[in-house]
């Protein structure tokens, strides 16, 4: 085994999956948001819901495409770079990924066609259903992939023969000990992340005094989600932490930079962990608080890093800082949500300048928190790739460092260029705003039409944001809503 190839293969997986996770996290939230908007539009008939749904669908399409194309390489990287892992764990986690493809990927990919191109081709109810199925598909996808990932952290329901894992109980494989916590934590993170983006976009429009009806709806929906999910996420994170302490104590010790189990644990607020000397430098800590958080008792004890042999310790510094970054952002999101809720209650949500200025710049918070959280949990699993079953340095394919280096360089170059452009396009779409008038719901008394409905008055790709749209479809320009019921939080 070539140590350079190992390092490069790890870098490659970390790079490709970090790039990938940004888009599905956003797509999971955004598909649910678009489906919600379409249901609201169907139920209330208010044009601005439809305008918003079409607007966010365009952004969803770009984000989803980037998620799909950055995800396909991952399902092959298991083989190209991690062949030994595929062989050892394939019997157990292979089927989980297979189920993800069958129950989620096809569902979302197929109905995406209807969702993107069916605005005037299928009846409204069918279009709304397609949007719901796409949202459902993204959530089911999260279920399976997080189950597979959780199994790598807390393997269960298997037995080893000659170093190869064989399934014993599928229920225990799928619902392995950390799965319920990880699933709840990650899905909430995805919905939170999208809510912040929606909130930030709404604030920008209000500051620019454009698309104000839509801006207010986005602000209220965003704040409502943050105020509910932010505190919920704190609770879920706490429970996830307790679960990790039970099953992966070394990870918790690294997160807390807790070296010695010599009494009730401090909560280390800041430190420069020195892994060689096995201690913290420049430490600022609060006594007993670490025990209180992790054992929910004042005098509680938990294992320190030194309780684990050196060759079974995860890296401490990166985990310690990544975790603190995630928690800090989580707290910021809770503050934004609660402050927004108070302003809303006082009727000043959409007119408070300082608040709008802050949230308009906050769009990136969720993405960074997700990346920091994944860095924490995946680094915390080291030196294992499947905890207690297979060490990362045993999992690699028989490939040379040069091969991996070249492919890594290509991934970095191509992803860097393509996805920067994609993010720039998303930014531009958001900047341009929910232009264009709502299209009247199409009804087909005799079922589906034989051919595309659109003829003289339907421009190419009108709904995908190409202006100008034709006069034939335009109704009155969006007037500022004065009806308070219109913008209510769902």
């Amino acid at each position, binding site marked *: 085994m070539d140590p350079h190839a190992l390092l490069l293969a790890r870098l490659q997986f970390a790079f490709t999956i970090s790039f990938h996770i940004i888009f599905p996290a956003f797509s999971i939230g955004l598909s649910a948001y678009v489906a919600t908007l379409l249901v609201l539009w169907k139920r209330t008939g208010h044009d601005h819901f439809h305008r918003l749904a079409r607007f966010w669908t365009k952004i969803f*399409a770009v984000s989803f*495409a*980037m998620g*799909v*194309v950055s995800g*396909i*390489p991952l*399902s*092959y990287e*298991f*083989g*190209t770079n991690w*062949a*030994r892992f595929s*062989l050892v764990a*394939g*019997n157990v986690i*292979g*089927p989980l990924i*297979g*189920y*993800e*493809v*069958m129950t989620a*990927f*096809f*569902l979302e*990919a*197929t*109905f*995406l066609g*209807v969702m993107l*191109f*069916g*605005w005037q081709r*299928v009846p409204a109810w069918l279009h709304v259903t397609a949007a719901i199925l796409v949202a459902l598909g993204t959530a089911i996808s999260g279920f399976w992939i997080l189950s597979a990932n959780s199994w790598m952290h807390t393997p269960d329901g298997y037995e080893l023969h000659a170093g190869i894992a064989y*399934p014993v109980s*599928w229920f225990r494989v799928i619902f392995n000990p950390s799965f319920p916590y990880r699933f709840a934590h990650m899905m909430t993170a995805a919905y939170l992340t999208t809510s912040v983006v929606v909130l930030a976009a709404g604030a920008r429009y209000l500051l620019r005094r454009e698309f104000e009806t839509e801006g207010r709806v986005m602000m209220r929906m965003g704040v409502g989600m943050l105020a509910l999910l932010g505190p919920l996420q704190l609770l879920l994170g706490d429970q996830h932490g307790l679960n990790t302490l039970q099953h992966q104590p070394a990870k918790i010790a690294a997160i807390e930079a807790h070296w010695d189990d010599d009494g009730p644990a401090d909560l280390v607020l800041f430190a420069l962990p020195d892994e060689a000397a096995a201690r913290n430098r420049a430490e600022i800590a609060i006594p007993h608080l670490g025990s209180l958080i992790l054992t929910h008792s004042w005098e509680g004890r938990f294992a320190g890093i030194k309780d684990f042999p050196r060759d079974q310790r995860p890296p401490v510094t990166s985990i310690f800082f990544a975790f603190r970054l995630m928690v800090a952002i989580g707290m910021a999101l809770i503050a934004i949500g609660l402050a927004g809720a108070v302003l809303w209650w006082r009727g000043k949500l959409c007119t408070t300048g300082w608040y709008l200025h802050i949230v308009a710049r906050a769009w990136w918070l969720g993405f960074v928190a997700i990346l920091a959280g994944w860095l924490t949990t995946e680094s915390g699993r080291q030196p294992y790739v499947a905890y207690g079953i297979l060490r990362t340095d045993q999992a690699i*394919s*028989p*490939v*040379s460092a040069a*091969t991996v280096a070249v*492919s890594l360089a*290509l991934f970095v170059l*191509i992803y860097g260029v*393509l996805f920067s*452009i*994609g993010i720039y*396009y998303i930014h531009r779409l958001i900047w341009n705003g929910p232009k264009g008038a709502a299209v009247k719901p199409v009804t087909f008394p005799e079922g589906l039409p034989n*051919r*595309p409905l*659109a003829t003289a008055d*339907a*421009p*190419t*790709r009108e*709904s*995908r944001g*190409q202006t100008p749209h034709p006069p034939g479809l335009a109704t009155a320009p969006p007037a500022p809503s004065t009806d308070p019921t219109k913008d209510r939080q769902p």
Partner: protein
Amino acid sequence: MNPTGLTGAEYWLPIIMAGVIGLAVAMYVVLDGFDLGVGILFPCFPEEPQRDQTMNSVAPFWDGNETWLVLGGTGLLVGFPFAYAVIMPAFYVPLIAMLLALVFRGVAFEFRWVAKPDHHQWDVAFAAGSTVAAFCQGLMLGGLLEGIHVTGDHFGGGVFDWLSPFSLMCGVGLVVGYAFLGACWLVMKTSGGVEQIARRLARPLCITFLAFIVLVSVWTPLAFERIAARWFTLPNMLYFSPVPILTVLLAVHCWRGLQGKHPTTAFYSAVGLFVVAYIGLVLSTVPYLVPPTITVWQAAAAPKSQIFILAGMSVMIPIILGYTVFVYHTFRGKVRPGEGYH
């Protein structure tokens, strides 16, 4: 006839599993084949409205089509982890190149519309990505037919083992084949200038593709003794004779469809040609997953894993096929110039 000495589930499960993966790969080749083909032919349509129409004809479908590739890849991991762990490192270079090419063409579908009017680079990305992806798939097909060097339980060959005149020929052949399928799709799904150009392209592409089929059929038995033994001994010759006969019939049928006003016939015959060629290659290879060493039985996952995934497949694949048909039905008919699906 059972060369393995295995009985019951251990004998049948890998066969069923291989059948399902074979189906997934066939679905992929046919479905993504025509939309990759449309990408390969993209530069043949000089005007922007023609390119819009060309892309619109596959835009609602490409994502679902490509998912069959993911099912094929994960199916191999699920059903045959040993084969997966050998094949993926063996084809490291063409595989990564294919995946990156698919990234380019995949994002082009969305970026091209968002970027307008500055979308020229996405036209290039779509065409080049489609062509490179198809070529790499051909390289891997050729490399797999030639065999993979296995040492113990892992790939034992070099990084460029797959590179040979034969695999290069397969790469070019598959590009031509997909382009032919794409041309027939465009004849069926478009109208106006695009249809006319596609019609002019389809017949030379058909002849070239047939020439490649003949070339592979001659080359493989000459180069690989096991394939010659498979095809040119009795009674196999009789059993397998429908393959060349069907190829000729489908080619004639397709030709007539292109000549007359039956574009649907032409497209389905082209699909049929692909399926028959695929069956021919499968017949050359079974029971090996990794010729000439690893059979489906040697590579099989634990029976419990195969049963679990097959149970899901028996429910989910019919459902997937059902809603795939529904979406194709929803977007049936021709795309006309200047008209999107909106």
